[in-house]
C-alpha cells in the first residue's frame, strides 16, 4: 500500500510535449507509472512518448479515464492548468511549476473549493513517488527504496537528501510527498500525515519543514493528539535572519509562529523527536 498513488493510478501529463514535460514523463514511464496520455493544446490527435496527446484535459479524461495529472507548464499558464484539471474531474493534481504568482494561487485555491474531490499537490513541488511503483513529478527514483517510512517535505533537495540517507540505511519508504515551498499551497503537512495514518504500510514518518507559515505547527498539533507512527521532524532555516526573504523558501517570518524555534517546540511538545541535522534523522527514526 501507499498513499495517493499506486500502480493502477492512471496519469496524464499537462504540457507533455514540452522539454521538461517530455523528460520527466520518460522518467515516470521508466519506473512503471501508468501514464495514459498528455495534453498540449493544438497537438491533439498526435502521439508522444508512446501515449496519445489531447487538446484539453476534459478530452484526455474522457478517452483515458485518467484520475491524476502532473503539470509541467510555465508559470503564466499553470494556474489555468490546475483549474482545468479539477474541472475535468482529476482528483490528484500535481503541479511542479515554480514561480506562480501568489495572487493566482489564491484564486486557484478559491476555485478548488468547488471541487472538493480534487487534491492539489504544490505548486513549486517535486511531486510524489511510491518507490518501485509509480511517481508523478521529478523525485529521482534512484534515491528511493520501497518500505514503511512516510516522508513528507517542503523542500525538494532536502527530500532527496533524506530519502537517499533512509534508503542507504535500509529504511525504505511507503510514499515520498513533496508539498512544495510556496506560501500558498495545495496539500498541507496535516493533510498528508492524515493519509499516512490511514495507510497500513506506513509505520514511520519523517516531516521535513522549514521556516515560514504555520503548517508545521498544525502538523505537530495533529500528531500530538495521538499517532501510531514513529515520527522524526526536521526544520531547516534556524539561522536564517528574520525578515529576509530567501528565494522560494517562504521565509517571511510572522508573529511568534513561523520561526524554526516555534516549529521545533511544537513538535517536541507533541512528543515528536526533532533532528538537529539531516544526518541525525535516520538514527532517531530507528
Amino acid at each position, binding site marked *: 500500500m501507499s498513499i495517493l498513488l499506486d500502480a493502477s493510478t492512471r496519469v496524464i501529463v499537462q504540457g507533455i510535449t514540452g522539454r521538461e514535460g517530455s523528460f520527466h514523463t520518460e*522518467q515516470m514511464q521508466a519506473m512503471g507509472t501508468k501514464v495514459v496520455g498528455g495534453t498540449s493544446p493544438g497537438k491533439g490527435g498526435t502521439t508522444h512518448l508512446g501515449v496519445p496527446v489531447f487538446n484539453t484535459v476534459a478530452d484526455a479524461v474522457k478517452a483515458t479515464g485518467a484520475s491524476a495529472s502532473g503539470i509541467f507548464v510555465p*508559470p*503564466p499558464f499553470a494556474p489555468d492548468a490546475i483549474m482545468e484539471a479539477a474541472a475535468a474531474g482529476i482528483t490528484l493534481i500535481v503541479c511542479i511549476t515554480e*514561480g*506562480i*504568482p*501568489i*495572487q*493566482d*494561487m*489564491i*484564486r486557484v*485555491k*478559491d*476555485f478548488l473549493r468547488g471541487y472538493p474531490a480534487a487534491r492539489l499537490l504544490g505548486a513549486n513541488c517535486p511531486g510524489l513517488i511510491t518507490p518501485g511503483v509509480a511517481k508523478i513529478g*521529478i*523525485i*529521482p527514483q*534512484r*534515491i528511493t527504496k520501497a518500505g514503511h517510512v512516510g516522508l513528507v*517535505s517542503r*523542500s*525538494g*533537495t*532536502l*527530500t*532527496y*537528501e533524506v530519502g*537517499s540517507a533512509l534508503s542507504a540505511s535500509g529504511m525504505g519508504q511507503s510514499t515520498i510527498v513533496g508539498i512544495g*515551498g510556496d*506560501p*500558498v*499551497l495545495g496539500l498541507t503537512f496535516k493533510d498528508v500525515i492524515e493519509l499516512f495514518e490511514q495507510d497500513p504500510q506506513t509505520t514511520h514518518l519523517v516531516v*521535513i519543514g*522549514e*521556516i*515560514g*507559515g*504555520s*503548517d508545521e505547527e498544525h502538523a505537530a498539533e495533529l500528531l500530538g493528539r495521538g499517532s501510531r507512527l514513529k515520527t522524526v521532524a*526536521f526544520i*531547516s*532555516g*534556524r*539561522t*536564517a*535572519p528574520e*525578515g529576509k*526573504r*530567501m*528565494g*522560494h*523558501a*517562504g*521565509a517571511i517570518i510572522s*508573529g511568534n509562529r513561523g520561526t524554526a524555534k516555534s516549529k521545533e517546540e511544537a513538535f517536541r511538545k507533541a512528543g515528536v523527536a526533532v533532528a*538537529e*541535522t*539531516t*544526518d541525525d534523522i535516520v538514527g532517531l527514526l530507528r
Partner: protein
Amino acid sequence: MKLLEYQAKEVLHSLGIAIPAGKVARTPDEAAAACAQLGPVAVKAQVPVGGRGKAGGIKLAATPEEARKAAEQIIGMDIKGFKVPLVYCETALEIGREIYLGFTVDRDARANILMLSAKGGMEIEQVAEESPESIARLYPNPWRGPLDFELTQLVFDAGLGELARPLGALIKKLYRAIPELDAITAEINPLVVTKNGEVIAGDAKLEVDENAAWRHKDLEERYGDVVEGDPYEVEAKKRGLTYVSLDGEIGIIGNGAGLCMSTLDLVQRAGGRAANFCDIGGGAKAEVVENALAVILMNPRVKGVLMNVFGGITRGDEVAKGLVHARDNLKMQLPLVVRLSGTREEEGRKILKENGIEPGANAWEAAQKIVELTRVKA
C-alpha cells in the same frame, strides 16, 4: 519587491488615494529647496525596512536650513543594513485621528486578509497581541474583490461606522493593488483623518510579488534600482541568482532553498558564520556555479566557500567539472570545500580531489572542514 514609502505613495495616489504633498530629495540642497516650496516638512529616510523613526531616520524641519541639515544627517545613514539613498520631504498633516488599514496574504487561510483598526498610528503588532478584537478582518473573494456590504461590515466592526462611506471607498481603491499590481502586502499606518475630515495616507508600505514581475515590467523599470542595500545582492540579481547577504565569512552555495538553509544551519553549528545564502537551483549548471562563485568572491569578508550540492538528476561528474572550471576561470585562491552527492558522486569526488578541491563525505563533515580551514587562514 518592497517599494519605498514615496514609491508606495505614488502608487496609492495613482489608485486614487489621497497622500500629503511631498518631494524626493537626493541631496541636502534638494531637501532645502523642497522645504522652501512646501513649508515645514518631515524629512524621512527612504529604506525598505520598518523602524526608521527609532533609528533617527525621520526629522522635522521648519526652515530650508533645517531641512538641509536633516538631509545631511540622514542621507547615507545605515538603517538595518540599508544605506539611505534619498529622503522624502513631506508636509505635516493636521491629525484628527489615526487608523490602521492593511492587507496581506494569510498563509494559513490561503487567502488575502484585509485588516482595519481604529487603533492606528502605533505598533499594530502590539494591538494585535493585546486586543485582537480591535482589528476587524475580512477575507475578500479573490475573484470579485470585496463587496460594498462586506466593507460596511468591516468598517462598523472596527468601530469606525461614522466613516463608513469614505473608508469603504478608500479600501476599494487600495484593494485594486491586488488584482492590478500583484501586491502581496500593503499597509497604510497611520491612515490619517485630518481635522477637516479628509482621509489621507500618512505612511505607506507596499510589497509586490516578484513571481509576477513579468506582468508588471513598468513597476520594475520605475522602482527596481532605487534602493540597493547591498552591492553583492545587486550583482547577484543582475546575474539571475537567488542570493541574500549575511554577515559572516563563509560563502555558501547550495542547490534548493531548503538544502541551502540547512547548510547555513550546519555552518553555524560547526562554529562558523555564513556570508550569504545562495541557491543555484536544481540543475547546478556550470555557468550558474561560476556566477555564484563570482558574486561570493566579490565580498572581501569571505575567507572560504562551502558548496553543498545534492544531484537528483544532475550528474556529479558534470557538477565537479563545472566547479573546477569556474574556480580556475575566477583564479580563486580561498579554501573551497564541496559536498557532492547524488548520481555519479564517486566520479565527481575524484575530479574534485585531482584538482585540489576538498570533497566532504557528508554535509556536516564539509561544514566542519570549511570552518576549520577558514579559522586557520584567519
